[in-house]
């Protein structure tokens, strides 16, 4: 399967070898992805099987309780559960029954593994199987890991989608499958454009209703909307899907290439692609121009966090004229990143993994104009006089597509404009 997504041979000859680091990381764990997945699939519930820390994490990461009645919760392990595993399984069954009684609207229940549940080897796959029998016809129970010992931030979505794949029906029908959570409005817009290009059948993973899973099979051409779906891509390829290789749909250029790659896979004539997309490109570039004025020439440092760093760096350097100081990524999937790496300016310094103290030291030495980082580092860096952009906003905001390119750039321009606007003399 790896061969089916082979690396473009000449892709990164211009890039120095990435800096590999290991030490303290400042990255959310995969549990955090629940915070956007539950909004995408309102009929699903995410039950973390973990500790009080897990419960505290998702509530803190969610901006401290912005949702009145969340569609996620935690089954908190106590001392009694650690004493014996049989007990923990019974307890889990009891809690799930309690939850389903309270929330009759739930159609899909994700049991999400955490660090403690994995360390004590609580078998959630088996638990899901058992619960599926207990609640057959009422709810579908799935499991995946969002633990911090296995996953970072956005990898949680990769895990959740992989859990859905075995349930997807098989079909040979020719279709475009977009994988990765998109904002509903953005998704509608992109699907509309694919229709205009003449691609009739477009399906999405995850779907808006967790029970309406798209089909997959040899007729499926897979287009990734998010760059952090390595496992999902491989699992879909195993089900017969064919991966469309493209940059990711961030910025005017990336989004155009992304759609054009899909069009080409469906045999749409380049002239038709130009006819539909070029007016959008022209308009997108016009909208981008004022942001470019703010961003051009500014030095950018991206800390590893969301796995969006490489596509964003590509967009911000090529379309907004920013200078890349260092582009960090929690892990580097060279195959899924090949198209993006090829577009990075030569000499771009990548770093993989993290040793936060060493990395901060480099940030301080370089004094970039803008640092993209996680929430825990943002205020301390601002206090040191550096403008920051929180990476969490990038997974919550509608930033995909040509029409959103200016909005995406605005997220980076705003901290700079804000600094400029303030004066206390």
């Amino acid at each position, binding site marked *: 399967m790896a061969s089916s997504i082979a690396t473009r041979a000449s892709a990164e000859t211009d890039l120095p070898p990435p800096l590999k680091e290991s030490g303290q990381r400042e990255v959310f764990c995969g549990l955090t992805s629940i915070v956007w997945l539950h909004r995408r699939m309102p009929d699903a519930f995410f039950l973390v099987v973990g500790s009080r820390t897990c419960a505290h994490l998702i509530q803190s990461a969610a901006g401290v309780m912005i949702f009145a009645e969340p569609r996620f919760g935690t089954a908190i392990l106590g*001392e009694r559960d650690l004493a014996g595993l049989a007990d923990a399984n019974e307890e889990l069954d009891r809690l799930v029954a309690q939850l389903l009684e309270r929330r009759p609207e739930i159609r899909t229940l994700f049991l999400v593994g955490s*660090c403690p549940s994995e360390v004590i080897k609580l078998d959630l796959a088996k638990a899901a199987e058992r619960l599926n029998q207990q609640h057959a016809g009422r709810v579908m129970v799935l499991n995946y890991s969002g633990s911090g010992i296995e996953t970072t931030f956005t990898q949680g979505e990769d895990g959740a989608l992989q859990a859905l794949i075995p349930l997807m029906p098989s079909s040979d029908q020719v279709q475009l499958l977009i994988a990765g959570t998109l904002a509903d409005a953005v998704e509608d817009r992109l699907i509309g454009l694919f229709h205009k290009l003449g691609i009739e059948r477009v399906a999405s993973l995850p779907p808006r209703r967790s029970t309406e899973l798209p089909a997959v099979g040899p007729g499926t051409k897979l287009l990734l909307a998010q760059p952090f779906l390595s496992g999902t891509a491989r699992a879909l390829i195993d089900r017969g899907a064919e991966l469309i290789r493209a940059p990711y749909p961030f910025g005017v250029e990336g989004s155009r290439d992304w759609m054009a790659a899909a069009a080409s896979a469906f045999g749409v004539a380049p002239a038709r692609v130009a006819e539909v997309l070029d007016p959008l490109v022209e308009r997108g570039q016009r909208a981008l121009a004022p942001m470019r004025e703010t961003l051009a020439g500014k030095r950018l440092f991206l800390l590893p966090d969301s796995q969006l760093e490489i596509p964003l760096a590509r967009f911000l350097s090529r379309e907004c004229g920013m200078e890349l100081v260092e582009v960090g990524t929690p892990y580097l999937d060279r195959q899924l990143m090949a198209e993006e790496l090829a577009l990075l300016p030569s000499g771009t310094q990548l770093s993989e993994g993290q040793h936060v103290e060493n990395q901060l030291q480099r940030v301080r030495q370089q004094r970039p104009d803008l640092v993209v980082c996680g929430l*825990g580092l943002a205020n301390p860096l601002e206090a040191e006089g550096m403008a920051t952009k929180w990476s969490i906003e990038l997974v919550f905001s509608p930033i995909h597509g040509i029409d959103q390119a200016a909005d995406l750039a605005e997220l980076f321009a705003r901290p700079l404009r804000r600094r400029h606007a303030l004066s206390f003399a």
Partner: protein
Amino acid sequence: MELTLWTYEGPPHVGAMRIAASMEGVHYVLHAPQGDTYADLLFTMIERRDRRPPVTYTTFQARDLGGDTAELVKRSIADAVERFQPEALLVGESCTAELIQDQPGALAAGMGFGDLPIVNLELPAYSKKENWGAAETFYQLVRNLLKPQLPAPGSPKPDPARWRSEGRRPRVNLLGPSLLGFRCRDDVREITQLLASYGMDVAVVAPLGARPSDLMRIPTADANVCLYPEVAGTLCSWLERQFGMVCARTVPIGIGATVAFLRELHGLLELELPAELQPGADGVCEAERRSRLPWYSRSVDSTYLTGKRVFVFGDATHAIAAARIASRELGFEVVGLGTYSRELAREVRAAAQELGLEALISDDYLTVEAAIAEAAPELVLGTQMERHSAKRLGIPCAVISTPLHVQDVPARYAPQMGWEGANVIFDSWVHPLMMGLEEHLIGMFRHDFEFVDGHRSHLGDGAPAAPAPAISADTPVALGLQWSAEGEAELAKIPFFVRGKVRKNTEAFARERGLAVIDSEALYEAKAHFSR
């Protein structure tokens, strides 16, 4: 296993972080997987701190588990000591690390750091919570640092009045204020000023702003003030037992408690009670006039506050204080009192009993929400959780306790303690309610076009066209209850801001009487029933 949607308290190692982050010169090495670094943002985002908490995480991953995680711990400790040169080192583990049993404290002790005080924190993550973790960390740290100063068994207790013979002003320690506590920074300033105005000095404030060397000066004070029992209770008891230090335990939130606190401290330190703290003929002491709360409360505009039904829930300290202020100093009726602080459940039960209530001791916010709905109060005084519940129930709410939100860490000076704290409390509890005169006038002019839906001219264009009815989705309209057209018309005449409540009350009344249809008669019957 326990199902939680939201949790009032974090795990105990977050409590330990609160102590470390509150202090200077302390570093905490936490054996924890990478996701646990989220805790940093509690401080940098909620508290808007300008620096990272002084914590080094080992950030172990699954692939490390097969290898030597103990080696990773030692490397992290060595790096942290070299990089941060702390004056005291805390070593502990989070919930996941506790399971793999590397015993980081023991490892650190064997690494040969010479004189560096190392505190091995054993915080059971699966049975204890944040406040307990903070209290235990504070206690262990001080105990460790004061070990060389421990008086020999049987030595006489220090005289709390020795300040007199030593020819100086009496001095006390303020113990318990910490980051992520409720308005601690401002309370410390308020209490320091308050004590100064009565001729007392503050020796050590801890943990907030203290260094390890400051903690070593704790025994030089004449008395301790246990400002936040959740964090300082354990330590204060130990200092009482081991060092014979007397401790003021009244928490000075509200007028009555501030006066009682000052009297207690004067008594402990054998200071003569100033005339202004002595009760006058009318039972009022002169010092009360330093706050506006007593007068504002007595002023005619506050008449409408009479008997407002309030529900109180929070940490024990703030919940007890709130219940007391609400009932005695604002003339409210407390219809519910509870806490998530199980460690202090006894105190909250006693406070509830005084008010003729049974305390609600729970850390399940849904239970609390159900209790609020059941009590149908006119005001909720609670945490961020109750703020959400109250919003859903259409009830005004003021936040009085942690867990908190960035909006509860205001830029302005907003203490809860002392005279100014009472002023702040008056404002922040009363503002969510309709002002008295406003309510009265609106009642008088309710047929005026200004108050017809959608014509709230003073709100400009931003006014909602159709105000959202203050009823939750689960209002039991579905249970066969129906409003007649005429009943609906009568209901529509009621100002929109009380309509939701009237609807709810009337429906409850109708259900009780077994009415199927609510007409205007039923509405007035209900009105008569509920008027007090």
